[in-house]
């Protein structure tokens, strides 16, 4: 039941678009530490949302809650109108895929194979058809291979499919991780610091890639520390500080908010790392 319900905080950008993802008071506690503190977030179709915040703000933890890798202490996540169970596999099936802050490819598989693994949840040939090489197996295997090659082309890794993931340059590994996530046919893509460790040229390429992904009709949530990148890219930006949403708004609004600068640079009261 994905009607055009608008979240109270939505700005002009998303008016008339359908809500795809809604996080409702998501809280994650690790013992005494509240890493994510009743965070609300909505993502609409075709939107790019930025998630910023100093180190340790809880951005990655929030992603883990969204994708079912953590079971939130409280709160719930609704995707396209239905509540997501906290199981990564179900989340992927529902249409949400992610990349990792510290790249987590399958290092000893080739680039092509990595992407083919992403197709796992969209294919279904079982043991029997695989053993007898049944028609379903053949058809699916060929389709999987073709789709994976296509995706490698899409992210700019055409022709690199035969390399072992662990032997690829850093920037290409990031692209490969995106291709692998795209292979799951997601409707929403979560990117955790996709340009970390990249040079300016690579960052520009990544930006262009993210726009191209959005143009294929996906919504995207991206965590980044590179403000120029974020404000260029995002329709809307959420700033998280110590687990709480500090401010949410358009890039312009967030950019000019003194509290955001304070959160990063630090005021006399906080001990946040300024090199974030």
């Amino acid at each position, binding site marked *: 039941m994905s009607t055009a319900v608008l979240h109270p905080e939505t700005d002009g950008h998303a008016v008339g678009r359908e809500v795809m993802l809604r996080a409702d008071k998501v809280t994650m506690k690790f013992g005494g530490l509240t890493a994510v503190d009743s965070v609300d977030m909505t993502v609409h179709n075709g939107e790019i949302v930025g998630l910023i915040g100093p180190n340790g703000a809880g951005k990655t933890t929030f992603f883990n809650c969204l994708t079912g890798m953590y079971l939130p202490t409280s709160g719930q996540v609704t995707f396209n109108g239905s509540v997501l169970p906290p199981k990564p596999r179900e989340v*992927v099936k529902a249409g949400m895929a992610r990349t990792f802050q510290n790249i987590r*490819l*399958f290092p*000893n598989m*080739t680039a092509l194979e990595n992407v083919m*693994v992403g197709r*796992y*949840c969209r294919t279904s040939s079982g043991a029997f058809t695989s053993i007898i090489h049944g028609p379903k197996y053949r058809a699916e295997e060929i389709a999987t291979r073709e789709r994976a090659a296509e995706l490698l082309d899409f992210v700019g890794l055409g022709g690199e499919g035969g390399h072992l993931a662990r032997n690829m340059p850093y920037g290409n590994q990031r692209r490969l991780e995106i291709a*692998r996530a795209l292979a799951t046919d997601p409707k929403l893509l979560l990117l955790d610091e996709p340009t970390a460790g990249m040079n300016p040229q690579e960052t520009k390429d990544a930006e262009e890639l993210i726009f191209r992904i959005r143009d294929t009709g996906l919504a995207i949530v991206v965590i980044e520390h590179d403000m120029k990148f974020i404000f260029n890219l995002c329709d809307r930006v959420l700033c998280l500080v110590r687990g709480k949403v500090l401010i949410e708004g358009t890039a312009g609004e967030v950019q000019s908010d003194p509290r955001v600068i304070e959160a990063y640079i630090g005021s006399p009261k906080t001990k946040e790392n300024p090199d974030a």
Partner: protein
Amino acid sequence: MTASATTRQRAYNVERIVGLVGGLIFAVSAFFPWAYGHEALDDMAYFGSPSPLQWFAVVMALALINCLAASLLEPTLNNSTGFLKLLGRISKRFGWIRGARALAIGMLAYAVLAILAVALELNGLVNLEMGAWVALVGAGIAFGSSMMLPTGRAPFLERIPSYPVLEIATIALLLMGMLFASAYALSQEDGGTFLMVLVFIGALAGFAIGSGFGSWVATAGRRHRTVLVSSAFLVAFLFPFTQNGSDANMSIATQVLIFAATAVGLNIVVGLAGLLDLGYIAFLGAGAFTAAVLSESAFATINWHPPFIVVMLLSGCISATLGLIIGSPTLRVSGDYLAIVTLAFGEIFRITMNNLDGSSGPNLVHGSSGIPAIPNLNFFGFDFGQSHVVAGIELGRFANYFFLMLVIMSIIILVFTRLNHSRIGRGWVAIREDERAAEAMGVNVFGLKLLAFAGGAFLAGFAGAVKAHVDVSVVPDQYVFLESAFLLAAIVLGGMGTVMGVLLGATLLKLVPEKLRFMSDYRMLIFGLLMVVMMRFRPEGIIPNQRRALEFHVDDEELVEDVEERLPYEFVEFEEVPA
């Protein structure tokens, strides 16, 4: 070339020449007697007429001389023109020094073994003739000098142009060679001789792998997969015909085959899915007990005797069910727990069987005395207990079971390889590499683990059903933890995730103890040492899966380069291998 490099090159030339001399000495020693007595080994007491074992020494020495000479001549060839230059270019792709090292190690082991065997069999070192000592010196020189030589680049022969006819002929020849070699090795009554034949075969294999010839054959094999597989089975099928109705060897061969088939099944669980199962033998046992209880033995406790096909399927299903029962609660937690639970399960199975004796529990299997007198199988009037004469050669009871096991083995191998190359196989690799990431990418981690576990159990049940009939009786104490450990060792030794590796590992682990009964007291000691050595020098096993090798060598850049270069030859399934 700088001055120092020239000196170094020259210095290595000295070592090459010294190595050549060592090889020559080793070869010449074969024409001298090695022992005084005729009883030792295969009678090495003659001057000028070498025994078969001594001829093997000559073969090894010639191969070594070939390696060292080729590497010595390489610069000269490369500086010449025409045909010689072409020869040089081809020679460059070989790993001559690697091959030489393998041979030299083999030669040294060969000489030491010969000396030990003669001394043991004839009581004392005095029974050794000059020849043996000369051989030892020659091997020592060859070993020392080849170890000092730099190994250089890994060989790369895959792209050498060749003709399909040549490739197929090589495959066929090699397989025939293997048939004769295994028949010859098995026919050796003398333990020392048997061991030396093994060392000889091992040295040649090491030479082939080191020099790069092995990878050429492997590529050829991949290109002509059907030829390779069908001729391998033909060779296995022909094996009983080389035995002249000898039941002793056929019995060993059948046991090896049962063990190997079980090990290949376990390799799905361990090598492909990466699950450490320490109680796998229980699944074999479950299959065997099912078949025993349903057999027409007078001691069978269930009065229902369905056809053997049904029994086999039932055995598989019961094993698989046990697998599901053990697997579903434990596969959710991480690896170490599974190892402990399966270890316990193996013991629980054995103890339970011991207690199903009518006093501690229901009388299902007569407790520790088990079910004896299981009759031979009978397929539509074909009695497995009878000898049959085919083409003038008598095929006894064990040969019949050997053929049956061959069929089962091919089913298990088919399941293994097909699953390995499917969507499911990719899922298993992903789980091994990074379980959390695999899950986050939508791989059904739990389901795939359970599939491997229960599937492996099913195949073990299959093999167990045949084992019950081969062994005639089924006793709980056949299915102890040690057997599980041996199965696992076959995989670790042979190679994780490959069929060839496990076949080799299983054959070695089962066959060698059978042939070396006089050393049975030290069996565990040798076995343990072997494992330690493997873990230290080649943790991925003798013939590993490329990917497994990579997993074991996280920092080995050279290996990565090597594998990448071969990638199109390793992982390609559908497209033709590019020329």
